[in-house]
């Protein structure tokens, strides 16, 4: 992008270089922190530098990342989706009903079913005008309840090797969930970067009224992001269910909404809406996973990693503050 802002061009070259350096630092801060953490781990942690460990860390963050990608789109429009964990529970329960059918049917059917809940969120938020946090909170409370009512709170176990491969399988040495995560990230990135939908999402997040006046169907865009968020959550739910070979309505996706929101904001998407930063979100999720792994592999209690994460969230937001 060329800089046509006159006030910027008046800045002396040396200042400009400093500005550019600051901009670079901001842009690459997240990858740099990740690289630094990997180097630190390589020195400190036993058995860290093996491909197995790397894939394991990515495997652990894959479902959070999937959910966080949908959350990125929602947050980019200035909304929020607290219901993702509940949608994962619904997806886990629903996919067990479809186990007699081919895997494609299981995937498509469950995603379609969960899309309905995203549609409900979207309609309540964009057509009725309820605040996103409270509308999705209602589904967060009720959705998991529905899943528990259906299973009576029990774990539903099953055997279905083809479906289980979605969570347990490996392609060469890469776990399938990691592949799914990257495919989704790439697809969403292409849509956001090169298609009008991405521009519309950003426009709605920047200024909803202006977007409306510019002829963008704001309601439809908002509806779409909540549906997408539910679809990605359902995919994440199926992956975890396949990995466990069991649908656990009570525990699946618990608190994932908070992890996903944290990944999104650490990744640089503004809570007030604006540009959706898909790779920022992916890196944000990986950073959080890396911190957890660092603590786990060094036998430091999990609780300390929560404290570090809290600091990272605030620090990341503070550093990105000037982007507005």
């Amino acid at each position: 992008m060329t800089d046509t802002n006159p006030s910027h061009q008046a800045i002396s070259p040396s200042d400009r270089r400093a500005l550019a350096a600051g901009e670079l630092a901001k842009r690459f801060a997240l990858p740099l922190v990740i690289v630094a953490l990997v180097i630190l781990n390589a020195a400190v942690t036993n058995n860290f530098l093996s491909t197995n460990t790397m894939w394991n860390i990515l495997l652990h963050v894959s479902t959070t990342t999937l959910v966080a990608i949908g959350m990125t789109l929602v947050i980019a429009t200035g909304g929020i989706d607290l219901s993702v964990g509940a949608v994962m529970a619904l997806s886990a329960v629903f996919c067990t009903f479809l186990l007699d059918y081919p895997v494609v049917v299981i995937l498509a059917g469950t995603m379609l079913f969960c899309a309905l809940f995203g549609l409900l969120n979207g309609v309540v938020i964009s057509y009725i005008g309820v605040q996103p946090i409270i509308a999705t909170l209602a589904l967060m409370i009720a959705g998991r309840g529905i899943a528990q009512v259906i299973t009576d709170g029990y774990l539903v176990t099953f055997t279905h090797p083809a479906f289980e491969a979605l969570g347990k399988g490996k392609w060469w040495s890469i776990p399938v969930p990691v592949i799914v995560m990257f495919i989704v990230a790439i697809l969403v990135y292409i849509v956001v970067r090169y298609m009008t939908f991405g521009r519309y999402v950003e426009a709605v997040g920047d200024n909803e009224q202006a977007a409306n006046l510019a002829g963008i169907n704001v309601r439809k865009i908002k509806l779409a992001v909540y549906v997408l968020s539910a679809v990605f959550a359902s995919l994440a739910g199926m992956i975890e269910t396949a990995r466990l070979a069991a649908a656990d309505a009570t525990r699946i996706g618990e608190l994932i909404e908070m992890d996903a929101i944290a990944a999104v904001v650490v990744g640089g998407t503004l809570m007030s809406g604006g540009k959706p930063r898909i790779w920022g979100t992916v890196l944000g999720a990986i950073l959080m996973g890396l911190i957890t792994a660092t603590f786990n592999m060094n036998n430091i209690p999990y609780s300390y990693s929560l404290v570090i994460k809290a600091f990272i969230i605030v620090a990341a937001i503070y550093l990105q503050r000037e982007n507005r």
Partner: protein
Amino acid sequence: MKSVANPQSGGIRRTAGAFLQKQGALVALILLVIFASIRYDAFLTSVNILNILKQNSMIGMVAIGMTFVILMRGIDLSVGSLLALGGILAAMLSPYGLAAALIVPVAVTALLGGVNGLIIAKMKIEPFIVTLAMMIGVRGVVYAVTKEKTRTIDDSLTDFFVTMGNGTFIGIPVPVWIFLIILAAAAFVLRFTRFGRNVYAIGGNEDATHLMGIRVDRMKIAVYTLSGALSGFTGIVLAGRLGGAAQPVAGDMWELDAIAAVVIGGTLLVGGRGNVVGTFIGVMLLGIILNIINLQGTLDSWWQPVIRGTFLLLIVIVQAQLIKRKQEQRRI
């Protein structure tokens, strides 16, 4: 005559709409109480009513702090974690005397609430994120300090705390007294003091309030401090209610219940409108729904969140419709 009659009927409808928006939760509460008293003999007994009040007094106290925060267009996700911290600190400090066990936890959680407010006001970061980080961080500290095990209050003080959480005074449970006193104080502050008016003013229009010379930053810090202090204190009462056992998982998800109660009570998330009496009604509504499910006895406990969530959704949809209608009227 016609031209006079029409605005009048419109006026009545408008007043009804405004009444519903303000008192919709009250109407729902009355209807629910009537329904429950007719259907269940055990409902309208003093034992049952006092039980409902007692069970919901803790979430009620947290929700009062949340009301202040939401009135100022903020949100506080850290209340549950601060509640756990308050209880744990009280248990850990109980060997050093009553004053230490009561004052220090509240002071610490108030301070952490103040940190929330400070970061929100000075660094201009969204309340959602700041308090989310506080929620995660404080929960981590609580787990780390307790090694995820329950801490019990020292024997010398067990009686005092158990009375605070479980005792009765003139036939009414002590926590209910505490809740009602805090509620009355909060209602008074919001209605009759400059502090309360400033809360509404900032929620209504922050920039204008700032231009009027009100120290918005200070107010924000004060309100988040208040929310933190109330959460910490609630943690102490809750530990007392559980026989002196402070649990590191205490208050998990309470922030969401509190937000739900505040919103059902008619306080708008966009700030500036609502009050703590509405919050009381919201808390009671959610509590009575739970009570009805228990009295029914045949419903699986899994139905409880389904009914609560659906109920929350219905209430906010009605609210949104009423607000939309009001805005359209204003435009005309």
